[in-house]
């Protein structure tokens, strides 16, 4: 079975919620919609206190080229435009909505009927994706329309659908594939039309045999679409790793993934594209895996954007007593949250409750130069050296070591027998080096 060629680790799957259907959760009384739910510039608020909104009303416009529209996931009244502490504890601007009933915009088709025909041309599809605020739902929340408009010098040859879900615990994409396979296929056709390609590969890891079987069967009816089963290996869901696994092509350092001829979109994004283009439904809800070994009712919950995390945890049976840590996202790349009242965003793929017994880090000991981190790094970097040079403040060595190529997957920290917090330092050093490079480029331009 295919997989990517450099590095990687194989953490225990722990897919506790695999095979569970998608269950909707109720609406909160008041919800906060963060203005920055995507990579790039925050959206600009276009509503004021007291405005009435419906589900699907545009409440914030994209604040730049790399940015995304935000639509109201609730009907009700705008209570205030204020700040709310997100998962990091820092306050971020948000629109607070007092939820009243559940009235949707008339333009949205809420029926379950599958709409397969689409008369729109490529530009109109991309335009619709932009209007509806679709962003990459794999976790990075990169605005989808930006990815669909590669620089004029580059041409996409193939579309890759990322249904890998290599993060342990998370099953939201898996559940979506099982429930909405037909819709996903239509979404894929729309994406193929938008970027003008004739071939698509759907990458699925081997731990989801039912999804592989179902999508392979559905793919027969769609010309050029092929399902590729991949060996389980983290971080296969990384864009560059997935391109390598499926096409055996490597993205050069600093180059865009489309330079290899491939455009990668998450499977949940394909579904969101279907809903946006065929049903005129903006991105207002998503599947969130709420999981953890001590939760009584872990599951794949369909929740509106802006639902407080505490409410989702309540729906999964409440926060267990032996909770040591609550992580937003998966255990590898997710970040522990300091606050359960924070609202979900477009990129919240999972909420993981880790037991007290498993939550703590082991105290680090000195590096023994075993080079396990070097073998594990999927980008072919030397994590020990990058961490060490950051600690010493020697950013020249870090830059020479291509620290900016780090995808922050955490394989180095995961594999370190000395439990060194390698990624913590590398992430810091990466930020510093990027700053140095930007300053240098700006100075050179002058």
């Amino acid at each position: 079975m295919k997989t990517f060629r450099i590095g990687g680790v194989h953490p225990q799957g722990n897919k506790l919620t695999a095979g569970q259907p998608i269950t909707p959760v109720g609406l909160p009384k008041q919800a906060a919609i963060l203005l920055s739910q995507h990579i790039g510039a925050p959206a600009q608020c276009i509503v004021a206190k007291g405005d009435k909104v419906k589900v699907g009303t545009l409440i914030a416009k994209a604040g730049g080229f790399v940015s995304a529209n935000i639509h109201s996931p609730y009907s009700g009244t705008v209570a205030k435009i204020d700040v709310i502490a997100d998962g990091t504890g820092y306050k971020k601007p948000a629109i607070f909505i007092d939820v009243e009933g559940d009235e949707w915009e008339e333009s949205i088709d809420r029926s379950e009927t599958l709409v397969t025909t689409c008369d729109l041309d490529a530009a109109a599809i991309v335009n619709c994706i932009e209007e509806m605020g679709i962003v990459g739902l794999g976790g990075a929340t990169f605005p989808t329309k930006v990815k669909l408009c590669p620089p004029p010098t580059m041409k996409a040859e193939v579309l890759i659908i990322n249904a890998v879900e290599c993060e342990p615990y998370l099953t939201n994409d898996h559940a979506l594939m099982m429930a909405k396979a037909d819709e996903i296929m239509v979404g894929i056709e729309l994406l193929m039309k938008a970027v003008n390609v004739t071939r698509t590969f759907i990458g699925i890891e081997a731990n989801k045999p039912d999804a592989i079987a179902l999508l392979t069967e559905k793919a027969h009816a769609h010309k050029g679409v092929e399902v590729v089963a991949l060996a389980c290996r983290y971080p296969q869901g990384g864009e560059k790793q997935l391109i390598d696994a499926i096409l055996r092509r490597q993205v050069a350092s600093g180059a865009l993934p489309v330079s290899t001829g491939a455009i990668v979109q998450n499977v949940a994004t394909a579904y969101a594209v279907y809903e946006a283009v065929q049903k005129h439904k903006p991105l207002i809800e998503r599947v969130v895996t709420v999981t953890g070994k001590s939760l009584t009712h872990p599951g794949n919950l369909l929740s509106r954007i802006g639902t407080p995390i505490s409410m989702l945890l309540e729906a999964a049976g409440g926060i267990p007593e032996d909770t040591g840590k609550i992580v937003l996202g998966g255990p590898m790349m997710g970040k522990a949250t300091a606050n359960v009242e924070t609202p979900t965003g477009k990129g919240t793929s999972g909420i993981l409750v880790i037991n007290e017994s498993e939550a703590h880090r082991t105290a680090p000991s000195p590096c023994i130069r075993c080079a396990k981190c070097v073998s594990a790094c999927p980008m072919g970097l030397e994590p020990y050296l990058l961490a060490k040079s950051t600690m010493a403040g020697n950013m020249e060595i870090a830059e020479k070591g291509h620290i900016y190529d780090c995808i922050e997957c955490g394989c180095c920290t995961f594999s370190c027998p000395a439990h060194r917090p390698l990624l913590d330092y590398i992430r810091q050093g990466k930020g510093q080096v990027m700053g140095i490079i930007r300053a240098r480029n700006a100075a050179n331009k002058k």
Partner: protein
Amino acid sequence: MDIVAISVISLGVIGAVAAVILYVIAQRFKVEEDPRIDEVESLLPGANCGGCGKAGCRNFAESCVKATSLDGLFCPVGGSEVMKKVAGVLGMEAADATPRVAVVRCNGTCENRPRVNSYEGAVSCAIVNSLYAGETACAYGCLGYGDCVAACQFGALSLDAATGLPVVDIEKCTACGACVKACPRHIIELRKKGPKGRGVYVSCVNKEKGGVARKACTAACIGCGKCAKECQFEAITVADNVAYIDSDKCKMCRKCVEVCPTHAIHAVNFPPKKPAETAQTTAPADASTGNN
């Protein structure tokens, strides 16, 4: 015998020729350097801390010699004394700069500012600051992982284990500003060093509204403005819900310290108030009537 003589003579000749060539080249390509640079450098502390904004002491000496006036050139470590000597060598006037000292503007001790979560990652303020708001509910205060302590070359900073906050040794602090740059939360400020190291400052930088700040830390400045009203010298300004005392305008009367409801204003290195002096707070009225 012959071989020995030939070797000695030939090596001697080669040596002599090489010496002549080297001497000629050395004279031909000699770099003229102002001898005053060496002289100025020898006066400087030689810590190469970069507190003056130059790449090191040598670079600072070169800048001093090149400059037409010493305005804007100041060695914070050596202070006015060293700058006077430098000025003497160069025959210029030394700008008289007031001595400064690093002040940590946070009083979020474990008692005042309870921990609401715990962090186990890399021990570095910069990393914690980029990850999240920290172990307390205050997103502005000291994180307590000692980036400032590591940055100080003079051993003037140490972490107090009881409070979790850095403490400045005013005797050792040279006001080089390395800690100011190292602190990701910009809590440390170089303030005017009063006589005997005395100083009055607001020990809080929390920009949250009063209630929120107070909830996170009992010693937070709530921006009530009482201190600004009390100050007769217009040294105190309140902006973004936090008061700031301009150390150049402050006359250290300490009236603001008494009115601060959260005790966020600190007066340091003043002699402890004697019982008699405490009584004096009511005494001045009597004294003034007495004089009349």
